[in-house]
């Protein structure tokens, strides 16, 4: 018993795991292109900065949208200004060269030399990773755009080593030698820079250097993270990093592809991970943020442009198979940017039903190819292909012939498929039974496809029975998601009951004797409505069966009243009753004049005290006359006065902590002064006593 239960549990977990990994990714399409026009909108004909201009122009270029003519003039002006000035920063020069590469502005003769010498000086003086990045990549761009000028890197090996010195053992990179924090985003920038150094270097590099970089890449790819749907991504280790997963992953991909291109090798990542990275970017959808959009499109373009590992994506325009329409299931295979895939064949290796996970309904079926629409399709389904939820497992097999590029695909792609069909409803009937004997008083056959006008009557001692049979197109038992039976009284009070399905038969028995209280003892005409629905049912129905006259006993005193039904059916969505809050009634304070009178009365005893003192003949004769003691005595009295003043301030506005702080200071002072005064007084009185 237990073992059986455990096995079932395990199968359920496995089913959930498989279902969790199934999802569909669509390549970049025209909806992306139209969205790009909305996201990258220049302000007054130009972009806020050269960085934003570069991102916008590069994205539009990759997507094949030509917006250059609108923007060239103002942006080119900025570019020329930066490239001709001798005081531009390395970052501005870098982005200006990037934009120039796309727009091809007219720079003039003197421009390139200045900017090249600036960048070369930048490389020599660079200490931070970002300085290396901008200057080296700037020189690479300058070499492409101005073929005449002579660009040399000086001691390339030394530059390589100083960039490498900022790396960490786990494959990440630091931004500067002072800052110990390492970042994956910086690692991407570093790999791009190193690739630039290799491409600009006059001679071959020491292979051990290159190998150390490759080991670093392997370490970095160990930190790749995975989502449940099979996508891979890179993210920063620290929680408050400034770069999110999209920009970090894009930076790493840029770095790895440029390094691989400079070495003329493939990316050092397994095929599944490359496709997983591509799927991560495709899974983002259409980003609303310009930077995320640029990172997504740029990274996908990097993955597509490299010669050694171009990912192919399998996508389905529709994941629903309708058994009534008998349309074929279409599958498309393309690159991530939507370009044509090479010659290949698509096989459906398994079709696992959600009900029986171990056995597959379809095995190793090859899909046919339609050259006109470049889609693969499956038009014949086996006889035992019933409605329900399935997981189709596809496999792409590339043709053996040599291609220009090396394409990679996933080992297998799991796609959730829903099969829908028409459910047949038979033997629908409604009957009123006498409860004790179970004999049928009246029975009516129903046609649930159209509204009926069945008229029944029952009293509280009888039962109502509704039954019907649902079968799938293949004749299997079917349990719908929704089977609701609704009774609605003339006064709009409604009751809903669930129709239970067991095997092929669905039945509901309402015993009115037990339900009188639920029905609020309301007798009268009830309308009957039945609704049956399911995700895989194409002919879900909602039918008004008819009405039933119910005769229920009188409501006793203590029974609950039916809730007030408003005439407006949508008033339950209207405003609710106003809540009147009960606040604490403020205490009654005495009249102001009375309080002021008592204030005066309180002062009277003090005046009486002063008068009494004068009558007693109080004097200050023993106030010390010598200056030293006089000063301490005076300070003593002032100190006490100051403390009392502090207390008044404490009551008026200070808080306890500042008061205590001030009091401690004053207290020390008072202690000191008071001790002096009183000891002097004591010694004076002692002298008098002895004298």
């Amino acid at each position, binding site marked *: 018993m237990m073992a059986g239960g455990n096995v079932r549990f395990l199968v359920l977990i496995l089913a959930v795991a498989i279902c969790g990994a199934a999802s569909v990714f669509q390549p970049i399409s025209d909806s992306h292109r139209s969205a790009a026009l909305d996201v990258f909108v220049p302000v007054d004909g130009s972009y806020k900065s050269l960085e934003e201009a570069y991102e916008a122009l590069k994205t539009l270029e990759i997507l094949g949208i030509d917006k250059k003519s609108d923007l060239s003039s103002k942006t080119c002006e900025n570019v020329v200004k930066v490239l001709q000035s001798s005081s531009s920063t390395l970052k501005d020069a870098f982005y200006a060269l990037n934009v120039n590469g796309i727009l091809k502005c007219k720079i003039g003769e003197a421009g390139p030399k200045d900017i090249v010498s600036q960048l070369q000086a930048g490389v020599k003086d660079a200490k931070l990773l970002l300085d290396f990045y901008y200057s080296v990549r700037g020189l690479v761009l300058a070499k492409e755009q101005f073929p005449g000028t002579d660009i040399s890197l000086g001691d390339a090996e030394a530059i390589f080593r100083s960039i490498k010195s900022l790396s960490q053992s786990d494959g990440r990179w630091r931004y500067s030698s002072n800052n110990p924090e390492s970042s994956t985003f910086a690692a991407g920038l570093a790999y791009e820079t190193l690739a630039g150094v290799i491409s600009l270097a006059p001679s071959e590099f020491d292979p051990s250097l290159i190998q150390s970089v490759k080991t670093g890449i392997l370490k970095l790819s160990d930190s790749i993270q995975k989502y449940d749907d099979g996508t891979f991504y890179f993210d920063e280790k620290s929680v408050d990093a400034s770069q999110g997963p999209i920009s970090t992953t894009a930076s790493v991909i840029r770095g790895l592809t440029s390094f691989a291109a400079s070495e003329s090798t493939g990316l050092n990542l397994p095929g599944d991970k490359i496709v997983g990275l591509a799927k991560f970017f495709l899974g983002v959808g259409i980003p609303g943020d310009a930077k995320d959009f640029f990172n997504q499109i740029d990274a996908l373009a990097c993955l597509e442009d490299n010669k050694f590992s171009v990912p192919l994506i399998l996508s389905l325009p529709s994941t629903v198979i309708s058994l009534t329409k008998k349309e074929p299931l279409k599958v498309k295979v393309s690159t991530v940017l939507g370009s044509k895939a090479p010659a290949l064949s698509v096989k459906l290796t398994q079709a696992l039903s959600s009900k029986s996970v171990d056995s597959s309904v379809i095995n190793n079926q090859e899909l046919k190819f339609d050259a006109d629409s470049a889609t693969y399709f499956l038009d014949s389904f086996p006889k035992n292909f019933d409605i329900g939820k399935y997981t189709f497992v596809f496999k792409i097999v590339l043709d053996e012939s040599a291609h220009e590029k090396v394409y990679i695909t996933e080992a297998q792609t799991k796609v959730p498929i829903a099969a829908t069909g028409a459910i047949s409803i038979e033997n629908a009937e409604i009957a009123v039974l006498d409860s004790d004997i179970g004999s049928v008083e009246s029975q009516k056959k129903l046609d649930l496809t159209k509204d009926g006008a069945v008229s029944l009557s029952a009293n509280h001692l009888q039962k109502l029975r509704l039954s019907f049979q649902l079968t799938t197109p293949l004749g299997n038992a079917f349990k719908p998601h929704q089977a609701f039976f609704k009774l609605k009284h003339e006064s709009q009070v409604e009751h809903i009951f669930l129709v239970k399905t067991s095997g092929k038969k669905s039945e509901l028995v309402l015993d009115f004797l037990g339900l009188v209280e639920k029905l609020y003892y309301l007798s009268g005409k009830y309308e009957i409505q039945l609704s049956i629905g399911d995700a895989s049912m194409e002919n879900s129905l909602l039918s008004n069966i008819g009405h039933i006259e119910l005769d229920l006993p009188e409501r006793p005193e203590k029974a609950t009243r039916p809730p007030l039904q408003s005439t407006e059916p949508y008033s339950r969505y209207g405003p609710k009753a106003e809540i009147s809050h009960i606040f604490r009634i403020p*205490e009654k304070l005495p009249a102001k004049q009375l309080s002021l009178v008592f204030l005066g009365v309180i002062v009277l005893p003090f005046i009486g005290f002063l008068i009494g003192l004068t009558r007693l003949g109080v004097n200050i004769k023993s106030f010390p006359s010598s200056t030293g003691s006089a000063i301490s005595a005076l300070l003593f009295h002032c100190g006490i006065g100051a403390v009392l003043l502090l207390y008044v301030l404490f009551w008026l506005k200070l808080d306890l902590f500042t008061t205590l702080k001030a009091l401690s200071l004053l207290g020390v002072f008072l202690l000191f002064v008071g001790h002096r005064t009183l000891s002097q007084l004591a010694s004076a*009185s002692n002298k008098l006593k002895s004298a």
Partner: protein
Amino acid sequence: MARSSTSKDAQDLFHSLRSAYLATPKNLKIIDLYVCFAVITALIQVAYMALVGSFPFNSFLSGVLSCIGTAVLAVCLRIQVNKENKEFKDLAPERAFADFVLCNLVLHLVIINFLG
């Protein structure tokens, strides 16, 4: 007869008390006056509270306790300063006064905090 003798006794008692009191040293009389002042102030506060209700009860308590506290401290000072008290013969009156001042300052800090 008896009534006049009791009243005469009362009068005599009163006179003798008065003359005995007049003999007390001046500093003790000052302290006594201070105690009376404090107690009368407390009584006026209680009368006010009886009239208008004790709404900010903490303020009432702090006011009354300030008066009573300072009266108690003054009584302690009187005991310690009184030369006829053999127990405190060795205690210098200045020391007692310093204690009185210190305790009053602490009492009034607490009172002001509680006054609200």
